């Protein structure tokens, strides 16, 4: 096996891994304000992709569908927050885990019945003929995924680290009540984070659909790997997910080649359980000192 082919596989795997990173980043956004994540995030990816496909079928241009899809994703994020998360957070319970799973199940079933169970192609104006860059072949489509993911994540990270709003995110996550006493509306902050997370899920759906096609199960494998990425990187490390996502993407392409395509999912899962054993707060997560 020539090294160049291995490199080629690793790189296209890593580019795919950025999609995992983007979905994982959606978990981090909500975790940052409320220590909760949407277990039905994959369904948001899928439903937003279907919605965007429907708009494209109606004849709208891709560049109009993109923002519409993001808005739709944000709206779904708000639905999840209202129906699944808010009450549990107010009661300081972990009921949101079950409720977001339930909402995901509902979205899945609705999508199955509204759009059918078949996989459908997703048209895009970005060409998919491969071009030769620095000795490996990549497609503009793959590159667009990378650019889109990094740009959006960079923008949101900037917002979180440099603005007062970002600090308010953190404050609400540390202590909801104390945040309220500063005049920060915990409710609105959490809503905003869920809306952002929904938009990020929609972006992931729109970017990845031309590669994977659109179908009810399109996101179930993706989201499982995003879970691994988020936990391995740590739920509070924005740039950790990028590294872990790319690493995992490369690893599983190689694993499916060397071990067998059925084992494609395995590295992520093994990596997850191993990472938990070694460093429960994630490789890039903040290690907490236990205080009493």
């Amino acid at each position: 096996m020539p090294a160049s082919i291995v490199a080629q596989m690793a790189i296209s795997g890593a580019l795919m891994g950025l999609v995992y990173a983007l979905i994982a980043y959606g978990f981090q956004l909500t975790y940052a304000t409320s220590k909760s994540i949407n277990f039905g995030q994959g369904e948001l990816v899928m439903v937003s992709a279907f919605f965007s496909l429907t708009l494209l079928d109606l004849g709208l241009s891709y560049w109009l569908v993109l923002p519409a899809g993001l808005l739709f994703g944000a709206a779904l994020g708000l639905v999840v927050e209202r129906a699944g998360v808010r009450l549990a957070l107010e009661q300081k319970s972990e009921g949101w885990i079950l409720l977001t799973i339930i909402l995901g199940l509902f979205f899945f079933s609705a999508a199955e019945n509204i759009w059918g169970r078949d996989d459908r192609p997703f048209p895009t104006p970005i060409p998919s003929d491969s071009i030769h860059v620095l000795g490996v072949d990549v497609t503009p489509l793959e590159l667009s995924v990378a650019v889109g993911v990094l740009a959006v994540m960079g923008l949101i990270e900037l917002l979180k680290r440099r603005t007062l709003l970002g600090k308010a995110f953190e404050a609400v996550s540390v202590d909801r009540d104390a945040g309220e006493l500063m005049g920060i509306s915990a409710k609105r902050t959490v809503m905003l984070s869920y809306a952002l997370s929904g938009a990020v899920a929609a972006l992931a759906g729109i970017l990845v659909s031309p590669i994977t096609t659109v179908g009810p199960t399109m996101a179930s494998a993706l989201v499982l790997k995003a879970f691994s990425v988020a936990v391995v990187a740590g739920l509070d490390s924005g740039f950790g997910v990028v590294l872990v996502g790319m690493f995992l993407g490369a690893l599983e392409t190689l694993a499916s080649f060397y071990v067998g395509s059925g084992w494609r999912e395995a590295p992520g899962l093994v990596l997850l359980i191993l990472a938990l054993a070694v460093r429960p707060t994630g490789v890039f997560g903040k290690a907490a000192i236990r205080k009493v």
Partner: protein
Amino acid sequence: MLLVEDVYAGYGLSEVLLGTSLAVKPGTVVALIGANGAGKTTTMRAISGLIRPARGRVLLDGEPVGGLPASRIARLGLAHAPEGRKVFGTLCVEDNLLLGAYGRLPRFFGFRGRAAADLERVYGLFPRLRERRRQLAGTLSGGEQQMLAIGRALMARPKVMLLDEPSMGLAPVIVQEVFRTIRQLKAEGMTMLLVEQFAKTALEVADYAYVMERGRIAIEGTPAELRRDERLLAAYLG
């Protein structure tokens, strides 16, 4: 400035406040004392909106605020330095202070400039905080965290400040410093409602005081009057 009228409140099914009434006039310091479980902290939480009063009225500067979310009440000019300090441990000292002024600062850009004068004021009051402005609040000692909690409340330029057990778990030397600060703020004309276990010390700074028992105000009066009350002396002042 702050008026609480016949407030009932509690957690879930258990009612803690059973008709509490009190008043804080502008520029005065009012102390709220009483046994554990009498409802002092619950009173504070009901005033600042962390729990919703089931009945009764809370007026801030003449405006009814009962039932509003805490963040709205905070922006109307009420600052609450909660029991246990509750600083944002994973943010640095200066970020904690900036968040104190959240209600009146721009969200995205230029908030540091707008808050500069208030930061100076707080750093002037607590020079230790200036030394540690880049340090994570969680790594401060208990005394420093208490100063940060008070400073953070001051950043909002509040009309009324609620201080809940500012001396809890602090060394005597720090307790003295906290009370020095309270006196200084009082001299500057700050209106304050103070919950305190060290009833004696609290009565020394207060203009007026309320004693709570089982969710109601049992006794009230000026510190001089309360000191004359034998029963009170025995029960609370030791």
